[in-house]
């Protein structure tokens, strides 16, 4: 059976419940659904954030996410994946990214979601610009995200 994979890049917000329902409706082969919602916080390392602006590389972003979703399906017995990544201006409290993974068992659902998030953080071509109290600037990449992504490297 082909595993349903949904990938969307959009400016608009998304609805968690709608996406989970769309993935699992009418199915009885799913025993576990994991969701990850990434949300714009109101401060970063103690500095207040007024908004984030997300830039992306259209075309490449979709392709990169799709490749990683296919890789997740090949590594874990997943029965469905949804990835939604927003771009444009996002204020604190708003959603940035959603990953939903479904499987018959919880281990695969958790692993698949963590894998996809680590890759989105380090490989998907998105860039965050922060509007803070003391001006605005591009967010630096974090070493800890590279470390997190490296644990999925195949020997």
């Amino acid at each position, binding site marked *: 059976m082909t595993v349903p994979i949904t990938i969307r890049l959009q400016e608009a917000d998304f609805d968690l419940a709608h996406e989970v329902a769309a993935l699992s409706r009418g199915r009885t082969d799913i025993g576990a659904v994991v969701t990850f919602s*990434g949300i714009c916080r109101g401060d970063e390392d103690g500095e207040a954030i007024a908004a984030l602006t*997300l*830039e*992306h*590389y259209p*075309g*490449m*972003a979709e*392709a*990169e996410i799709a490749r990683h979703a296919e890789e997740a399906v090949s590594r874990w017995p997943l029965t469905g994946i949804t990835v939604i*990544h927003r771009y444009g201006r996002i204020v604190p409290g708003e959603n*940035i*990214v959603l990953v939903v993974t479904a499987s018959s068992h919880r281990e695969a659902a958790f692993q698949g979601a963590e894998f996809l*998030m680590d890759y*989105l*953080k*380090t*490989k*998907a*071509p*998105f*860039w*965050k*610009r922060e509007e803070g109290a003391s001006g605005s600037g*591009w*967010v*630096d*990449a974090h070493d800890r*995200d590279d470390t997190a992504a490296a644990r999925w490297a195949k020997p």
Partner: protein
Amino acid sequence: MKVLYFAWVRERVGKAEEALDPPPAVATVADLIAWLSQRGEEYAYAFEKPKVIRAAIDRMHVNQDTVIAGAREIAFFPPMTGG
């Protein structure tokens, strides 16, 4: 070939994309970065720390020693900060 710039690379270069036709001696991504850096102050500023720059050829991540022959679209950008 089409060259794209994103995030602060785009801001420093001052444009999002352009069509370029580098000379044959520009063989790799690293060569292209070096060649671009000589095109003006804005490029020199964008590529002042070439090791920080990430590149994609035809929408696939590549290392800077990748050969650019045959590329239709080359993009330069900082490390990604999505998710």
